[in-house]
């Protein structure tokens, strides 16, 4: 509109001028010519008017954009390479950012989630321990800074009485949980305070998915009775779809929730040997985390005075809930974020190089523009517009790439990342991508733009040796320097995983099968019936063909279980507090456990079938326990006390097992290992142990997976109400402990690969360009008697010098950077010279080969043709 008016206004002026001249006696044609002469460049005037109106920016930018799109179409090949390169860089950034965004940045899905905090007991050996239920009750009563506290505990339930029996994951929670998290049930209600006490009416909430799956989303579910672990519970409500309690990994859906205080487990009333309660609280409005910390420090002090035996030296930590949930993964994610920033920088350098080469080709065009009156800033702006249009195209392609990559990431991340269900595209991710694209456009566009504006009307020299392009060399050096840390990081991770594969776990996971089973409620009602259930099932499985041996165990290594208790040697001075004692991992098990796992027996004997509830309690310790507790004595025959139990006699010493993973450190906090007969547990504790899932481990004589169906059938025969949750080869469980490192390696390896590819393309590009610029020089040299080999050496040498400079810089950067990944490394130092050396050599080989091709081309040039060129 404005543009049309401007045109009309100037045209009017022009016509008036012509009319004037005609009036003064000129012919029409003459008048026109004179007017046109006088008027000068119509377009120039228009441009200045637009300038004056400051509408210039938008209008001319649109014009520049149109021009950019035209020139992109004309240079389809270059455009494809540039957009592809950027898509890789921006796509990688977007994908990782969407993970960071979903896991670290998005708020938790609770009402005013920033006020929800997690509370832990702290003690010298453990910075974050779960709380005793009685302590939780005192925290709730004594603190002044939280609106309320809630207690949560995992619990599994056997659902029986409605169709197939099923093992359901679930929670026991305090009634306050729902108001703290701000969740309302989909239908029905949550728990009342009266239900959240010992002896309260058994009520349950179920998940929306269970409601749909088992009860066809029938609202008649309210008031119905469900048999859970043999007890009838009345369903009072259904929790909304997608709702999750804090502290859980997305892989295990939780379907049943019951009031915590109704639990009759004896440990609930024990401040020392307790079942582990997770506590969350809602801060009062305006109360800072620091204030709450001070408040709970006071509470901890009061409790230490009141219950010195259990609480001496204990503190209470207060941390925003989100920080707790992501604390294990934020380091790895920021590492990956750093890696993709390197990738996009390398991509930028590549694109800048390509555009610089094109800029040289476009010097005449720019000289023309400049001669026609385009100012320096105008040319820079047009160039930057072109770059940003390219970058936006790259960003769009990157977004497509990233959404595919993100879907893959979510799938493979579910096992290793908390909150992975929150990963996805949202406004913030799109904004991030846009920002990255614009920033990269400016970054890689600046170099050619500046070169253009400097070019002005510079004549391209006809000198024999054209000036070396210092800036382009610098780009190559930078690319190599950026690629090296990624490659080193990837190589360190590969070595870590190799090292872990070579680790002796202390047992033999091959041909081992693990079945997770929950006994039917009727089987776990009394001590004798539980003991019968164990021995009966073991005998049945043993008799299956292809079975070498079977054992039951809770706390199987590498499953994430770590039930532990303090250990005291009878006869030694009683400790001031129980937490001065070393802590031992407890493995209640059955006689054939050693035979199944092939853990070596070092001294004495292992548990046998004569160690039962009628015989005196026995204990088998591992070599670490023997060394730690009995450095200069024979442990056999000594008596030790574990937790709140009575003394047991040590009958044997076995090898140490890597309990929490292949990277387990013997200096870790729980490194003592204690085996005792599950059948010797007192009835009350046996019921507590048996109400959870039992792991039956078995060794097969051949492929263990072939036994799956027979095993299933046999367990069903033993008791149709027994529930099998999983049957899994032990190999798989062991490999699972490497999952998060493999995840990291997969991603870091991909990024390092992209970086290597881009960097070698960059070297190739610059060397090719330099060969084409040096054609005359090469011709003269060859005319003067240089041989192809000399030329080859000279060109490859140029590439080698650049890559060496890059490698030197990259090695220095890596020395500084790899320390950030030292926590994930195993058996290899973060500045391992062998890794650094081999990566540096490998990268220089790639660099030299990338410069070899163009060098070969240069050396084959015909000297006469070379001299004639230009």
């Amino acid at each position, binding site marked *: 509109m404005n543009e049309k*008016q*401007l045109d*009309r*206004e*100037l045209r*009017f*002026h022009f*016509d*008036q*001028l012509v009319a004037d001249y005609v009036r003064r006696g000129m012919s029409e044609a003459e008048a026109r010519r004179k007017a046109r002469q*006088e*008027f*000068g*460049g119509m377009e*120039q*005037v228009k441009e*200045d*008017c*637009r*300038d*004056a*109106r*400051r509408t210039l920016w938008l209008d001319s930018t649109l014009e520049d954009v149109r021009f950019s799109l035209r020139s992109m179409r004309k240079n389809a090949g270059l455009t494809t390479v540039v957009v592809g390169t950027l898509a890789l860089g921006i796509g990688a950034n977007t994908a990782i950012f969407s993970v960071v965004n979903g896991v670290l940045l998005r708020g938790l899905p609770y009402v005013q989630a920033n006020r929800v905090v997690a509370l832990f007991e702290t003690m010298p050996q453990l910075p974050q321990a779960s709380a005793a239920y009685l302590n939780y009750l005192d925290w709730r009563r004594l603190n002044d800074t939280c609106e309320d506290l809630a207690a949560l505990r995992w619990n599994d339930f056997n659902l029986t009485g409605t169709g197939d029996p099923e093992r359901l994951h679930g929670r026991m929670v305090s009634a306050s949980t729902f108001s703290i998290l701000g969740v309302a049930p989909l239908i029905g209600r949550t728990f009342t305070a009266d239900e959240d006490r010992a002896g309260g009416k058994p009520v349950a909430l179920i998940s929306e998915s269970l409601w749909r799956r088992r009860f066809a989303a029938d609202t008649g579910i309210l008031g119905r009775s469900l048999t859970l672990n043999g007890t009838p519970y009345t369903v009072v409500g259904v929790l909304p779809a997608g709702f999750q309690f804090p502290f859980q990994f997305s892989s295990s859906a939780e379907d049943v929730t019951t009031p915590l205080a109704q639990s009759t487990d004896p440990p609930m009333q024990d401040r020392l040997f307790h079942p582990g309660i997770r506590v969350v609280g809602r801060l009062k409005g305006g109360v800072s985390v620091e204030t709450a910390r001070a408040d709970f420090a006071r509470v901890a002090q009061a409790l230490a005075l009141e219950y010195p035996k259990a609480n001496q030296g204990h503190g209470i930590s207060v941390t925003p809930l989100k920080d707790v949930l992501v604390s294990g993964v934020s380091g790895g994610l920021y590492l990956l974020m750093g890696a993709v920033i390197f990738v996009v920088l390398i991509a930028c350098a590549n694109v800048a190089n390509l555009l610089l080469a094109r800029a040289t080709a476009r010097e005449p065009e720019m000289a023309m523009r400049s001669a026609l009156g385009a100012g320096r800033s105008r040319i820079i702006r047009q160039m930057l517009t072109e770059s940003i249009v390219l970058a936006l195209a790259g960003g769009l392609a990157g977004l497509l790439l990233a959404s595919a990559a993100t879907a893959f990431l979510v799938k493979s991340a579910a096992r290793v990342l908390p909150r992975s269900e929150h990963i996805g595209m949202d406004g913030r991710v799109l904004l991030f991508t846009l920002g990255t694209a614009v920033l990269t456009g400016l970054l890689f566009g600046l170099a050619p733009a500046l070169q253009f504006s400097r070019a002005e009307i510079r004549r391209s020299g006809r000198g024999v040796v054209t000036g070396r392009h210092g800036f382009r060399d610098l780009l190559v050096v930078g690319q190599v320097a950026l690629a090296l840390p990624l490659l080193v990081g990837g190589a360190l991770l590969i070595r870590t995983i190799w090292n872990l594969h070579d680790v002796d776990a202390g047992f033999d996971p091959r041909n081992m099968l693990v079945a997770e089973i929950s006994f039917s409620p009727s089987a776990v009602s009394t001590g004798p019936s539980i003991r019968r259930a164990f021995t009966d099932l073991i005998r049945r499985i043993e008799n299956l063909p292809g079975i070498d041996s079977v054992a039951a165990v809770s706390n199987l290594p590498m499953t994430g279980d770590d039930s532990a208790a303090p250990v005291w040697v009878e006869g030694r001075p009683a400790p001031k507090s129980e937490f001065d004692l070393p802590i031992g991992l407890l493995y209640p098990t059955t006689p054939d456990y050693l035979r199944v796992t092939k853990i070596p027996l070092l001294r004495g004997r292992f548990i046998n079938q004569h160690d039962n509830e009628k015989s005196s309690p026995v204990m088998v310790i591992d070599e670490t326990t023997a060394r730690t507790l009995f450095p200069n004595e024979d442990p056999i025959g000594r008596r030790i006390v574990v937790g709140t139990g009575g003394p047991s006699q040590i009958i044997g010493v076995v090898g140490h097992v890597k309990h929490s993973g292949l990277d387990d450190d013997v200096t870790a906090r729980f490194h003592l290992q204690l085996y005792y007969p599950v059948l010797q547990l007192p009835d009350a504790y046996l019921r507590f142990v048996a109400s959870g899932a039992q792991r039956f481990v078995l060794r097969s004589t051949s492929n263990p997976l072939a036994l799956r169906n027979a095993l299933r059938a046999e367990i069903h025969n033993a008791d149709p109400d027994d529930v099998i949750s999983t049957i899994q080869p032990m190999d798989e469980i062991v490999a699972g402990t490497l999952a998060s490192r493999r995840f990291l390696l997969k991603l870091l390896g991909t990024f390092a690969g992209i970086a290597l590819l881009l960097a070698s393309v960059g070297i190739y590009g610059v060397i090719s360009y330099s060969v084409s610029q040096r054609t005359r020089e090469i011709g003269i040299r060859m005319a003067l008697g240089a041989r192809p080999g000399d030329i080859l050496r000279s060109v490859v040498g140029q590439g080698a010098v650049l890559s060496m400079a890059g490698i030197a810089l990259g090695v220095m950067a890596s020395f500084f950077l790899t320390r950030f990944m030292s926590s994930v490394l195993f058996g290899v130092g973060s500045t391992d010279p062998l890794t650094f050396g081999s990566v540096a050599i490998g990268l220089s080989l790639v660099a030299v080969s990338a410069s070899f091709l163009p060098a070969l081309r240069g050396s084959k040039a015909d000297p006469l043709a070379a001299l004639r060129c230009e």
Partner: protein
Amino acid sequence: MPPPKSDLPQGTLDLLILKVIALGPIHGYAIAQRIQQISREVLQVQQGSLYPALHRLENKGFLAADWKETETGREAKYYRLTGKGRSHLNAETANWKRLATAIGLIVNFAEGEAR
């Protein structure tokens, strides 16, 4: 022979344009003509300077414009002074007079000295 042309000192073009427009609504071509006439052909305004200046002044709110028919029946863009433009003109005129007097004094004084 046409009288020698004079380059306009920086910033004075705006003043001239505002002054001419202050006499009544007028289109761009006529402004150029009018300046040339009044200055007795000494000052010649190039289209290349005139139109950017007009658009700048309009953009600043000193001028407003309407499309009107000329006596020859064509549509032209007529500029007129806004209130803001008028006070700007007054301020600039006063400024100019002060400046011209000062420069005149110096030039005369210097000539007197040299004599």
